[in-house]
């Protein structure tokens, strides 16, 4: 389920796009896999982090992409600090 939350992208004339849970989920999984977290665990962590971010987003109709990164990092830190560090520091995790 995607929330009706607009994500304001920086450096793009403040253009907004809808929040897509799938994209956040994939980025968390990628960060976890990059620090050699087993695939199943990465999925579980990503699921928990996405739930945490969505709970935070419920009261906010519009946030920035940096906010998503900050909140996701905060949640990810409690599950896997190393992955959280990578997620926080790398803007593009492939």
């Amino acid at each position: 389920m995607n929330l009706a939350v607009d994500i304001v992208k920086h450096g793009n004339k403040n253009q907004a796009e809808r929040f897509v849970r799938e994209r956040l989920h994939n980025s968390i999984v990628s960060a976890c896999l990059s620090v050699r977290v087993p695939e199943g665990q990465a999925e579980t962590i990503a699921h928990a982090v996405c739930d945490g971010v969505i709970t935070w987003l419920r009261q906010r109709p519009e946030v920035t992409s940096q906010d998503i990164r900050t909140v996701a990092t905060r949640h990810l830190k409690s599950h896997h600090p190393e992955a959280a560090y990578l997620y926080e520091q790398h803007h593009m995790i492939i």
Partner: protein
Amino acid sequence: MAKKYEFDYDLIVIGSGAGGSAAATIAAREGKSVAIVESDAFGGESPNWSDIPTKALLHAANLYDEARHGARFGLRSSTLGYNYPSIRAWKDLAVKRTGAGGNRRYYESQGISTFNNAAHFLSPNEISVNRRHLSASNFLIATGSQCVIPDIQGLDTIKYFTPRTILEAIRPPKSLLIVGGGDTGVEIAQLMAIFGTKVYIAEKSSRLLPHHDSEIGELIERVLSEQKGVTILNHSRVMSVEKDGLGKRAIISRAGTEKSIRIDEVLVATGRAPAVDLGLENAGIKYTAHGIDVNDYLQTNVKHIFAAGDVLGRDSHTHTALLESQVAANNIFGRNKIVPDYTAIPEIIFIHPGIATVGLSEDDCLKRDLPINKAIAPLNIIARSNTSDFRDGFVKIITDKKGIILGAAVVAPHAGEIIHELALAVKYGLSADDVAQTPHAFLSWSEAVRVAASKLV
């Protein structure tokens, strides 16, 4: 010539409580274009859910309590009772009459644009309020604070009260566990105990009111336990809570042993934390979970953004927030920057007997290694104590070695009124001799101030 950017407003104030409202009004009166953004009810915490409603309820409770114990003065009070819905109606009337609660129209009449939604910074000069982008050349953050919910196992599975929600309870619970023995916990403990609730207070430290001098905590502990039947559990940590039939059961760890108590309701009064979740990172504002960092002029590291009130994370009260708001308004638009003067800010707990402090406490002086003299005048040595048949309380004055008053504490009926004489003394550096030489009316509670001061001469 550098391009001058245009903004929607000269000032956007985020939060309409004491920290924000004064600044918004001052700026609007100076002809600036101002917007105020409030995520909850206009007026903020104090008039809507904390100071005003609590004190209105405490006033009714204390009247009831005094009348109930009037037999010793020859009053017949055996048939005295109360109707809690009517008491709540009185509380609502008091809130309504302040004019500060839910007063969106007041701001609009001052020419201030109002927005009733949460604000979120998108950039240093722009916020989003329900998808509407507002920009300003200056901001004042006065979002206040929110209740801290401690990490207690099972707390998320039960319905519990906060200091805000307990004021809306349909009736006082039969029994209540208060987690936290600070100012709010003690006020609500007395309120509920007067209305017949069996109250337990679980406090982690060795006494109630741990932020005040030990004499205060010890006296209030005695008053609450002996006169109001409150069970005080010091050195206690609530480990878990769970549903138990229609009530709740709490496991409390005390001095290495675990104790289980069954209660009807739980109140979490473990303090407040600054409300800093408004996208401050997007504006580049430095902050921690303990509050927004500001300099002496209440300016954040982003020079056009100021902050005032509880969001700074200091021991703040409505009157302190109001002072900071006025200072911030001056510093945002004025050429001569000013610094808020915190030296003589009184702090009051509205229980019976009242507690009021000002300036440095004895613990503060010890921490700063200040050589001091102190004197305590117990209430029972003054005449008023006899005519009112009330003996629990004292006036404590702390001076430096030259006799200049550094701080004071009053535990007495009407302590909140008595303390202002000592606040004046602290602010203007008066000596204990100055206070002792000032005539104090016979049969006033303030006589205890003169007695305490004269002990230091």
